[in-house]
């Protein structure tokens, strides 16, 4: 892409520069943030935001770009977390193999389920994924012998080739690195032929299939990808927190992920990161307003969605662009 002279090129060049600036900014923030964090609690909040952001981006690939809703995504997160926890605790597997096995298992389950439920659309798809998430969380709380039931279970710390990974600061670099990696992968996917196929079937499945896109396969593919990313994050965060309970796979967690995607902006990678920052920080900031925190939280959500209906990042980018160029532009990020 160094020889740019044809007419479509400027757009590509612009989006490439935009991508680079975005990525450079994100990397700088991730690299410098620890200097500004006074103690382990703040590092912990940053880590939890990174986990939410990666999950948000993965879900956004499915919801924002492909237009398939999932209200059961925390279920996959839970499968990864419990897969790792059970394999390490009951079978003595090493954490790395447990993580890979849990991810593979989740991928297989997601693949099997996706082939059936992705035939559904709209509300029906929402209902099916909702049911799936609830089933997973019920299984996790009822299989007491394996999962410890509603009281949850402790998870050993993660070790790689015999070196234990402990302490918030070390984990911070793991999750920070994963976040940057996920952003790079997601951006490349979206700009690849496969990604364009996903966006095409979001616009119209019929038109997409007329254009030669295997709609069913693409949808299943992105669903499995998204579920697997959630499972890997589940495994890692289980090792990080040292404790899991079925609540992590619950309906509310799934809704939280959906909020991240919708609030930050559908089909916007940085929107998902923004959504994760809001969802990670707001409860901590509001923790002092006991009893009012839920009210304030809801109020902020409602006002944001009324004022910025397309999500914060896309709406603001569009507004910025229209003031700068005097026209209504579309946000590419």
């Amino acid at each position: 892409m160094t020889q740019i002279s044809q007419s479509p090129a400027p757009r590509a060049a612009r989006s490439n520069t935009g991508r680079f600036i975005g990525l450079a900014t994100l990397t700088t923030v991730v690299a410098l943030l620890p200097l500004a964090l006074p103690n382990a609690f703040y590092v912990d909040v940053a880590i939890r935001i990174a986990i939410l952001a990666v999950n948000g981006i993965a879900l956004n690939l499915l919801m924002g770009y492909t237009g398939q809703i999932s209200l059961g995504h925390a279920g996959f997160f839970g499968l990864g977390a419990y897969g790792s926890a059970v394999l390490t605790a009951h079978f003595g597997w090493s954490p790395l193999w447990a993580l890979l096995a849990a991810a593979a298992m989740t991928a297989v389950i997601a693949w099997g389920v996706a082939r059936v439920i992705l035939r559904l659309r709209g509300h029906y798809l929402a209902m099916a994924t909702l049911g799936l998430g609830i089933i997973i969380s019920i299984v996790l709380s009822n299989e007491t012998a394996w999962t410890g039931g509603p009281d949850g279970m402790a998870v050993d710390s993660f070790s790689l080739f015999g070196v234990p990974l402990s302490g918030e600061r070390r984990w911070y670099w793991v999750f920070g690195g994963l976040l940057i990696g996920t952003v790079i992968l997601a951006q490349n996917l979206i700009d690849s032929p496969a990604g364009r196929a996903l966006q095409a079937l979001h616009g119209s499945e019929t038109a997409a299939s007329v254009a030669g896109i295997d709609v069913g396969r693409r949808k299943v593919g992105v669903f499995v990808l998204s579920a697997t990313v959630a499972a890997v994050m589940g495994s890692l965060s289980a090792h990080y927190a040292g404790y899991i309970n079925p609540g992590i796979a619950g309906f509310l967690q799934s809704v939280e992920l959906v909020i991240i995607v919708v609030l930050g902006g559908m089909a916007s990678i940085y929107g998902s990161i923004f959504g994760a920052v809001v969802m990670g920080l707001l409860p901590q900031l509001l923790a002092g307003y006991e009893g009012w925190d839920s009210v304030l939280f809801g109020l902020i959500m409602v006002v944001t969605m009324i004022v910025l209906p397309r999500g914060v990042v896309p709406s603001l980018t569009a507004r910025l662009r229209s003031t700068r160029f005097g026209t209504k532009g579309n946000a590419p990020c």
Partner: protein
Amino acid sequence: MRLFNTMMGIACALGLGALAATALAADPVKVGSVLSLTGGASSLGDPELKTLEMMVEQTNKAGGLLGRPVALVHYDDGSEPGKANVLVKRLIEDDKVDMLIGGTTTGASMAMYPLIERAQIPFISLAGALVIVEPVKHWMFKAAHHDRMVGQRVMLDMKAKGYKTIAMLSDTSGFGQSARKEMQNVAQKVGITIAVDETFNPKDTDVTAQLAKIKNTPNVQALFVVTFGQGAVVVTKNVAQLGIDLPHYQTSGVATREYIRLSGPAAEGVRLPAPVLMVAAELPDSDPQKQLSIDYVEEYEARYKTDVSSFGAYARDAWFIWTNAVKQAKSFDKVKIREFIENTAGLPGTSGIINMTPQDHLGLDVSGLKIVTIKNGNFVIAN
């Protein structure tokens, strides 16, 4: 002029020094607490917080602890154990607390513990399940009777009454399921058969389906309901609606006046094991638990104009276990305080006489639980 400046300088320095000194002396001891103030367990968390706030005020009025004032830092986990895990990190790392009391639910306490163990801070949990103290966890203690004891107390009473075949109805919460498992074990040991073993969701607004099954099972001699809060009220009302006249047992999870008020006449005759707190006035004067229980009830009810519950009383006991240990240790050294808590001996509390050992981080026996029954809208000791 020069002299004046020097004088001013000295005065300022002295003033600052004095300020620093008072600041040091007044540096409060911080007690951190994660409680369930909203969500399903809020009826438990609310009296716990009220009690802790009352205790802080009382302690400070009496001159603090070892000359230092006491401060409470608390957060609400919304009855979600996962949130408790985040919040306890905040208490440890950001608020830098010296002591932890709380964890309204078993899930929350267990979610908090790995971080507490790493930070090495003494922790007294207010939750119910046995798993908190068995196996013994170095830094975690417990103020409330656990579910096995509650089960033992109830089963022994059933056995004394000659009931051999019973029906059990437990909720699907952490407490309900953990208790259900314990009850099954205890029943087997004392020779009671659980003929029907039904479960329900604590958020259900109707459990007549399960109760009808129990009603239609022949030979059942008693009903044992294992739940707390809202669920217990629903079950109690449904039992009355279906006209089930089996002896009705509940757990200490309903030892609140709120339960009686919400259930109305349906609660009459319900039997349950309760901490002596609820029936303190009936105790003989020689009982060391009597006066302190009455004092706590009177102070609490005068201050908050609301009924006392056994959950708040657990927080009261936890507070005294801690302050007692601090006074004996004569320091705020966490390792020392932990040791003194572990060796608490003969300390009377609202739940019983507390005798902890390195093998027993609860220190209570079943004698602190009295079988009470509800009569004319009041708890009375059952015969």
